Every structure is written in C-alpha cells, then in structure tokens.
C-alpha cells in the first residue's frame, strides 16, 4: 500500500535518471506502477535527451581528415608563426639588453673607480708638495715680508753656527734649547 501511495522524492527522481539501480527496491517497484512518478522521470529524461540531440545537430561534422597527413590551415599557421616569431624576437632582444647592459654597467663602474683613484692621487701629491714646501721654508712668505729679512737660507746648520752647543756644566743646557734665545 505504502509503495503505491508514497511518491518518489525529488532526490529519488534525480537518482532514477542517473542510475535506477541506486534506488531502494520499494522505490523501484513504485516507479514501475506509478504513472505520475514515471512521467516525471520521462519528462526530465526527455529534456536531457534534447540537450544531446540539439548539441549534435548544431555541429555539422566536416569530412574526416586523413589522420597521417598534417594539414594546417593557412590562417592558423600565420597566427602561430607570428606568435613564435614575436616570442623569439622578444627573447633575443632581452638577451641583447642583458648582455650589453651588463657590459655597459661594468664599464661605467670601472671608469668611476679610475676617476676616484686619480683624484685621490692628485690630492696626495698636492699635500706632499705642501709638506715639502714647509720642510724647505717653515716660515710662510708673509712673515718673511713683514720681517724684511730673507731667512730662506737659515737652516739648522746656520743656527748651530750662530748658537753653538756648549757642553753643559751640571744640568746646564744651551740657552737656545731652554727657549731663551
């Protein structure tokens, strides 16, 4: 009685389309007897069948190509050859940029380093020249002019001659070494 009155659920209707064997035996028996449920299944099956039919009708199949002969259409091959050509050109360009750019960067760095070393050497030479000048003549030009005497010839020997070392007696030191002269 139950199987005759209790209709299939929506879920069971769907399973009946996928695989009727998935239904419980009671539902299978009901489906055989019940026109309402079997009509629902038929209606859905028919709708789904129309999808396949319309899809097949909408696709006119061209005659089979010979399988063992490659035959590409002209338009397609142009598209793809342009694609490959563009890709190859882009890669080649990138390679040139990387190699040439790298070389240029190295050159630039080398030039910069040489310039820095040269500048440093010039500064060192200028400093050494100043030091040499000071050794030759410790008194700057301006003081020589103020004193009105040219003491460029005055050196350590002349000072020794002018104020000779006197052998100290006891703890006595020469006057010029005490800073009194």
């Amino acid at each position: 009685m139950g199987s005759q009155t209790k209709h299939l659920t929506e879920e069971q209707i769907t399973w009946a389309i996928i695989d009727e064997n998935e239904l419980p035996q009671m539902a299978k028996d009901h489906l055989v007897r019940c026109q309402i449920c079997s009509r629902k299944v038929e209606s859905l099956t028919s709708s789904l069948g129309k999808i396949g039919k319309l899809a097949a009708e909408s696709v006119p199949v061209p005659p089979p190509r010979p399988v063992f002969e490659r035959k590409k259409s002209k338009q397609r091959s142009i598209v793809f050859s342009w694609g490959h050509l563009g890709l190859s050109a882009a890669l080649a360009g990138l390679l040139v940029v990387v190699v040439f750019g790298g070389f240029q960067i190295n050159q630039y760095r080398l030039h910069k380093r040489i310039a820095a070393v040269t500048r440093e050497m010039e500064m060192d030479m200028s400093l050494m020249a100043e030091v040499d000048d000071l050794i030759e003549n410790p008194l700057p030009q301006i003081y020589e002019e103020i004193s009105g005497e040219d003491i460029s010839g005055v050196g350590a020997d002349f000072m020794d001659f002018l104020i000779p070392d006197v052998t100290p007696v006891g703890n006595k030191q020469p006057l010029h070494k005490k800073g009194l002269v």
Partner: protein
Amino acid sequence: MSSAKKGDAEAFAFLARYYWAPIYRMVYHRVRSRMDAEDITQDVFITAFKRVKSLNEESKFRSWLYTVAINRVRDHMRKRKLLNLMGFSAPKQADDIEQQGISEGPNAFEKVLRKDFWNEVENFLSELSRFEREVFILRFMDQLNISEIAEVMGKGQSTIKTHLYRALKKFRAEPRFRTFLEGIE
C-alpha cells in the same frame, strides 16, 4: 582493432573514420571553433595511433579515445590562455557554434533556436563547478555512460554519480533552461 594495435595504419584509419564524428563533436562542444576542432581531432587520432599499443583492453577503446581527446582539449585551452596572456590572441573565428548553426541551418526558426539553445547551455554550465560541468557534458552532450565517464575522468563511478547528481539538481532548479527544452518538439 587488434590490427590497429599492431601498427596497421589502414586498420587504424578505419577506426578513425568511425570515431571521427563523435570525437569532433566532443571537441567542438568545448572549443567552439571549427578550425581548432578539426586540428585537435586530427591530433587526437595521431596521438591515439602512436599510443594504441599501450591500450590493454580493446573494449575500452572508445573511452580511452575520449581521454586522449579531453587531454588534447585541455592542452589547447592552456595554450590559448598562454597566448592570450602574452597578447597573441587568436583572431575571433567567424565559425563559432552559433554562426555555424545559422549559416548551415535549414530555416530561420532553427537558426534562432540553435542560437538560443547555446546561450541557455552557456548560462547553465556557468553555474556548475568544473568537475560537474565536465561530467554533465560527457553524459548528456557526448552521450557517454557512467562507466565510460569514470574511465575518461579517471575517477570511481560513485564519484561520477555524485557530481552528476549535483549537476542535475542544479538543472532541475533552473526553470528557464528546462522550460526552453520542454518547448522544443
């Protein structure tokens, strides 16, 4: 079949002629371009000929062929996506499915009907997940049975049934597409 497995090109060419139309349609349903579908179908049979020796069960040739075709379609989609990404988009084909139907349909009503049909299919399929969509197309457009779909997809039958159930549930909840289909004689 056994001759084709031994490398007999003639025997394989016979098989290719027999399966050409269903494989071509299956590819066409996915790529929607006549030129691409022709190229891919040819590739499918070339690949199949090279690998047919590895097929253990001759009875599974049909589902195995569909597996090869699905893989070729996926390769094609990947390539197309990559070309689009790089800016080398293929020119829009004038022979997409709607226009194909229009140019070759017997009368104006059928032309419009086919165009509407593909629009409805597009709308409905966009609501399905990738797996549900593939299973639905294989079952109801390519007309494969559950065990064949399971072999093509490399999944168990129960998995296929579950995904098909989900797809059908969405189909039943889509009144527009159902009404459209019910209105067709």
